[in-house]
């Protein structure tokens, strides 16, 4: 296994109290595999990724428990110095907002080249040649001429390509993409997702795709982990989850999106609001919004029940997953 996150807990100390952002997350990705982490804002999907990358703000954030095994090595036990060598070279991240993630006063060539200067000790000249090569690879037209341009001179889609180029620079084994296409228009989104999927196949990388868009997930993912209030509520291969969700939250999400191919009646809406992380409801965190909730849900935290075993294990954190799956 390329990456394995085990029982991860992350808290944030805020003025109002302790916000429990991640409460025992387990997931894993293999080389060449795409894991989609699906969730709404505040579900802990980005915080988990930041913990894996080692870019969590500490303080106020704090990892209180868990292991992050990368090729069998627990990253949380590494010294910051060694961690830095892993970051960028072996795992890289693509952020949502390319305009604010790129430095506006450095040319894109300098920013891409920096990767090679810092990690590989290359000269300025060599690193610039490498930058042009990378820009070609992510199909930026006229790379040679554009390498000296600044981020504002590129369109949104091109900037996101530069972010991808930067993440790929050192040919990492794992890429974490946090809402990589949310800020883009649909036609450009399709271009960027295609590019990302193609490069992943070519380089046989593991990809963690963090998103709230059920459509994007269906197009590229192999398996899905659905998060709610800092926990994984359902984990399944992509085909099965759309056919028959085994958790009421997943089911609600799928039913609440309008469809492109028909007009449809009134949308199903999950009632209520996502929980406040300072004060997560006892028992199953979803119980105040759940149509299946009973007394047991308000007291017992549901474990991840095994739904099916083969070929990829499928789990659901619902006491009544059978009811959800079959009815």
């Amino acid at each position, binding site marked *: 296994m390329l990456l394995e996150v085990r029982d991860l807990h992350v808290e944030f100390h805020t003025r109002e109290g302790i916000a429990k952002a991640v409460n025992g997350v387990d997931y894993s990705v293999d080389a060449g595999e795409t894991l989609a982490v699906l969730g709404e804002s505040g579900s802990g999907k980005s915080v988990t990724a930041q913990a894996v990358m080692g870019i969590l703000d500490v303080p106020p954030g704090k990892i209180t428990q868990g292991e992050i095994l990368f090729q069998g090595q627990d990253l949380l036990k590494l010294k910051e110095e060694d961690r830095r060598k892993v970051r960028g070279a072996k795992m890289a991240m693509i952020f949502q907002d390319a305009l604010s993630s790129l430095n506006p006063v450095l040319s894109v060539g300098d920013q891409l080249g920096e990767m090679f200067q810092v990690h590989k000790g290359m000269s300025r000249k060599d690193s610039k040649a490498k930058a042009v090569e990378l820009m070609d690879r992510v199909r930026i037209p006229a790379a040679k001429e554009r390498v000296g341009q600044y981020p504002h001179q590129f369109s949104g889609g091109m900037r996101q390509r530069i972010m991808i180029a930067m993440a790929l620079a050192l040919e990492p084994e794992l890429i974490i993409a946090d809402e990589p296409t949310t800020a883009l228009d649909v036609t450009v*989104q*399709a271009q960027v997702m295609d590019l990302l999927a193609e490069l992943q196949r070519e380089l046989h990388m593991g990809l963690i795709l963090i998103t709230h868009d059920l459509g994007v997930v269906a197009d590229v993912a192999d398996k899905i982990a659905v998060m709610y209030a800092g926990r994984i509520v359902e984990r399944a291969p992509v085909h099965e989850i759309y056919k028959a969700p085994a958790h009421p939250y997943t089911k609600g999400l799928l039913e609440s999106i309008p*469809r492109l191919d028909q007009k449809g009646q009134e949308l199903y809406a999950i009632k209520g609001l996502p929980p406040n992380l300072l004060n997560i409801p006892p028992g199953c965190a979803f119980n105040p919004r759940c149509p299946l909730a009973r007394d047991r849900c308000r007291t017992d935290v549901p474990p991840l029940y095994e739904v099916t075993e083969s070929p990829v294990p499928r789990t659901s954190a619902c006491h009544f997953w059978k009811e959800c799956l079959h009815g």
Partner: protein
Amino acid sequence: MADLSKNEEAVAASEAEAVAAIEAPAERGEPILQVRDLKKHFPLTQGILFKRQVGAVKAVDGVSFDLYQGETLGIVGESGCGKSTVAKLLMNLEQATAGEVFYKGQDITKLSGRALKAVRRNIQMVFQDPYTSLNPRMTVGDIIGEPFDIHPEVAPKGDRRRKVQELLDVVGLNPEYINRYPHQFSGGQRQRIGIARGLALNPEIIICDEPVSALDVSVQAQVINLMEKLQDEYNLSYLFIAHDLSIVRHISDRVGVMYLGKMAEIGTDEQIYEHPTHPYTQALLSAVPVPDPEARAHRERIILTGDVPSPANPPSGCSFRTRCWKAQDKCAEEIPLLAIPEPFQGQDTPAAHFSACHFAEEKNVVAAH
């Protein structure tokens, strides 16, 4: 160049004619809002002391459509296509460069002062970002009640608090929250406050500029359902501007697709989604990620190359030709008219709707799932 401008004039004339002949199914009656050849060009200037105009960003470049009582017209398009500028022009927040907007027969682009104020009462707006469109230092009661300060005839002073509480109730918020501040609400609740403010003056038309795109999926459905309920209750007309094609289909009766300041195709939701004839609409629809992994295999995807050209310097002829796989010489020379394409004229098929393409062809790209 002379040829081109002549061509443009011809386009304007025949487009106006065409639109006059459009739609207007008898049972709908008179349109409540008629937009004719609306243009907004933002000047590009050079020099500091002696500013001279060196060009113009043609944000909206000849858009025409009708809006009927109680219907929802969806406008879709990518960023920079001018859909938000259309919204601002309809609200008279921007001065149109050319064209007319008739509200019940009256051209509102020419109005000012008292007459404009009276019309504005009937056309209200709901904005995209519920975080920045509410003043953080005003209570919810003040925010929703502020329209009454400008139009006191709607609610006399003593009655306002009750009116505001009624509005809160209508949009599904607890009327006791009247003294709270925006930061005490979640995104979805804030959008409800924005909607309540839009409803305060009992308008006939509400212009919604990306009203749900900042919201989480599970909350989006709540707000969409609320908007549909309010439409039925108050017989509102919506102009629903969004980039999410699935949501637009869900809520709209008719849909217009914009590209680079122009309307590329307009028709009923079924005509646009199941029988699109403009290549841009087809590409746009095929690029939408569908939440069904089974559809991956048997779905044809049209991946456009390149980006949207700059509206300061749009391509000659058809503005989509630089990204279009069907483009031929004719597309660079002649601006296609927004009309029923020739092959479908006089036919009783869903493909016979307005589409601005020389080589319009029907193609269903939305796989049923």
